């Protein structure tokens, strides 16, 4: 079978070098990976620049890069909301206001924090739903990687799925979370180096930003301009974007999804953990340069994309095929391959931690040795990877993978966020109040999705509104149940809840080390960009 690219020997050398590199990283890390803390938490020893890049990069998979460049070509700059309002405020809030409680609780996972704050049942619901969801997402990632490699290079679907799964398994098996984090950081630099030439070529060719915008439909250069009404690509107005996407979905993902939160737990101190999401926010605002803006360039170069038999999803690959020759093609493919593989690695390590600490240790074998849990973690990785491969072949039956993932995410993640917000910032929230908000949120999400006869213009609009209302319902139920049940004592909540624990002070440090100052700079940058590209 023939693909879009004609890869030469040099391209294969570049791809192969990446495989060798990640396996070498895993091999070198194995001797730093002895205890459970090493394997599951990177020994809580990493500096903030590493955890910060990984925090952002764990989410920057290839589906994201390909999907968002397609979104840029189809809808324009309005897609940037997923990176700006949908992430930056959440990351800043996480760093300043939530991280101190996460860190001080010494929890090893998000479900474990729920256990400390609420009860075993709350942890159980979260742990099981997270474990199932993570394996599904990992499988979807594998499948879409197979599809992309088939379209671009003509590789066999089955072979590319199996080979990449085995390589990923090999390096996370050896180095645990550290392997995953190191390759995420590598992936971030590869994505920049592999895709930025397209952005630069596009901007130079069309004469800068204004030149580029003059080659595409007028409103494609704006972020907020069309949000006064619902007549825009997102199919909804500013309220749903600010509160549904920005407040609820963004906060839910960046503050409670264990895939990203696990990166902060690997940081070497509370301050490093606090600045992790704030560093990440500085990078996150510029991510549109390697996907959404690339989509705009694709639209300017191929004005009929999406209408002449080509797919928007091919926006990025079509530009690569046009401007890259043998050599750069290899680098571009490696960037995409790397981000597929790290996405998988991240999911598998997060799954393994939750399985081992929150399911196996909590319900199956409470008092085993540390060595036994590390062994169990490696076993869980292998089984999780096999399950992912099966899921990959099932995933083929869903038409739009991104929408499917968003749907899944809003069912589980939003209720947890409601529970967290109540639990961390209102110490009156009781164990069963937390549990009921979590469960009622999941149930209401299902009702909203399947049973309510409301029509929405786009799947995005539905997800935004659903997230918002799920949060409202879960919060209301949580408050109501808390008022009728017995609260925990201050002694039990020491260190993990606002009002019992004080925030740490960094007054003695220089400004660039203080989370508060860094957060202000990030916020100012976010506001400035929104105004410039309004």
């Amino acid at each position: 079978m023939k693909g879009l690219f004609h890869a030469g020997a040099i391209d294969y050398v570049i791809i192969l070098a990446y495989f060798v590199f990640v396996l070498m990283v895993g091999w070198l890390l194995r001797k730093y990976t002895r205890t459970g803390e090493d394997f599951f938490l990177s020994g809580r020893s990493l500096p903030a620049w590493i955890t910060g890049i990984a925090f952002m990069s764990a989410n920057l998979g290839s589906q994201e890069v390909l999907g968002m460049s397609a979104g840029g070509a189809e809808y324009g700059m309005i897609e940037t909301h997923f990176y700006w309002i949908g992430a930056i405020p959440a990351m800043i809030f996480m760093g300043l206001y939530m991280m101190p409680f996460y860190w001080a609780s010494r929890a090893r996972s998000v479900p474990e924090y729920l256990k400390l704050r609420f009860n075993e049942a709350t942890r159980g619901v979260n742990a099981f739903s997270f474990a199932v969801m993570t394996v599904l997402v990992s499988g979807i990632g594998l499948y879409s990687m197979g599809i992309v490699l088939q379209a671009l290079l003509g590789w066999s679907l089955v072979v590319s799925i199996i080979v990449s799964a085995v390589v990923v398994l090999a390096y996370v098996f050896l180095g645990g979370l550290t392997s995953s984090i190191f390759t995420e950081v590598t992936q971030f630099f590869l994505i920049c180096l592999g895709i930025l030439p397209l952005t630069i070529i596009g901007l130079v060719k069309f004469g800068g930003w204004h030149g580029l915008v003059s080659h595409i439909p007028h409103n494609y250069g704006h972020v907020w301009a069309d949000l006064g009404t619902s007549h825009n690509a997102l199919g909804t107005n500013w309220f749903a974007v600010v509160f549904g996407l920005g407040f609820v979905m963004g906060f839910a993902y960046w503050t409670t999804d264990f895939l990203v939160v696990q990166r902060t737990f690997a940081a070497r101190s509370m301050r490093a953990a606090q600045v992790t999401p704030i560093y990440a926010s500085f990078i996150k605002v510029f991510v549109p340069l390697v996907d959404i803006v690339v989509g705009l360039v694709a639209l300017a170069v191929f004005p009929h994309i999406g209408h002449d038999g080509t797919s928007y999803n091919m926006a990025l690959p079509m530009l690569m095929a046009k401007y890259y020759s043998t050599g750069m093609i290899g680098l571009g493919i490696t960037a995409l391959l790397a981000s597929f593989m790290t996405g998988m690695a991240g999911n598998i390590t997060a799954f393994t931690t939750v399985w081992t600490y929150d399911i196996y240790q909590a319900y199956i074998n409470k008092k085993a040795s540390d060595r036994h849990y590390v062994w169990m973690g490696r076993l869980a990785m292998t089984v999780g990877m096999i399950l992912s491969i099966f899921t990959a072949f099932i995933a083929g039956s869903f038409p739009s993978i991104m929408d499917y993932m968003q749907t899944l995410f809003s069912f589980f993640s939003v209720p947890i966020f409601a529970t967290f917000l109540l639990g961390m910032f209102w110490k009156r929230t009781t164990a069963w109040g937390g549990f009921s908000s979590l469960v009622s949120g999941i149930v209401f999400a299902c009702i909203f999705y399947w049973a309510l006869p409301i029509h929405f213009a786009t799947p995005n609009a539905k997800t935004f509104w659903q997230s918002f209302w799920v949060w409202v319902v879960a919060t209301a139920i949580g408050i109501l149940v808390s008022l009728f049940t017995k609260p925990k004592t201050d002694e039990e909540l020491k260190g993990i809840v606002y009002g019992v624990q004080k925030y740490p002070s960094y007054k003695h440090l220089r400004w660039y080390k203080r989370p508060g100052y860094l957060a202000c700079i990030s916020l100012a940058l976010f506001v400035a960009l929104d105004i410039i590209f309004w």
Partner: protein
Amino acid sequence: MNDSQKPAMLDLRRLLGILFTFYGLLLGIYGLVTAHQPRSISFNLNLWWGVLMLIVGILFLVFSIKPPRTWDPDDDEHV
């Protein structure tokens, strides 16, 4: 395990330095030798981007000369 026996963490900066120096050299030399490019652009992208990657790689190697600290002295005074 005793903490004092534990080796300092592997330096990611050095690993990145090795990877990007290798990629930079490979791509740059390939660009120099073959000098073929798609008709749609008028310069040798492989060569120039290879040089840029080489610079990135060398910068990482330079940063990694100083061994990584395993803890930050600023973080110990309060909690």
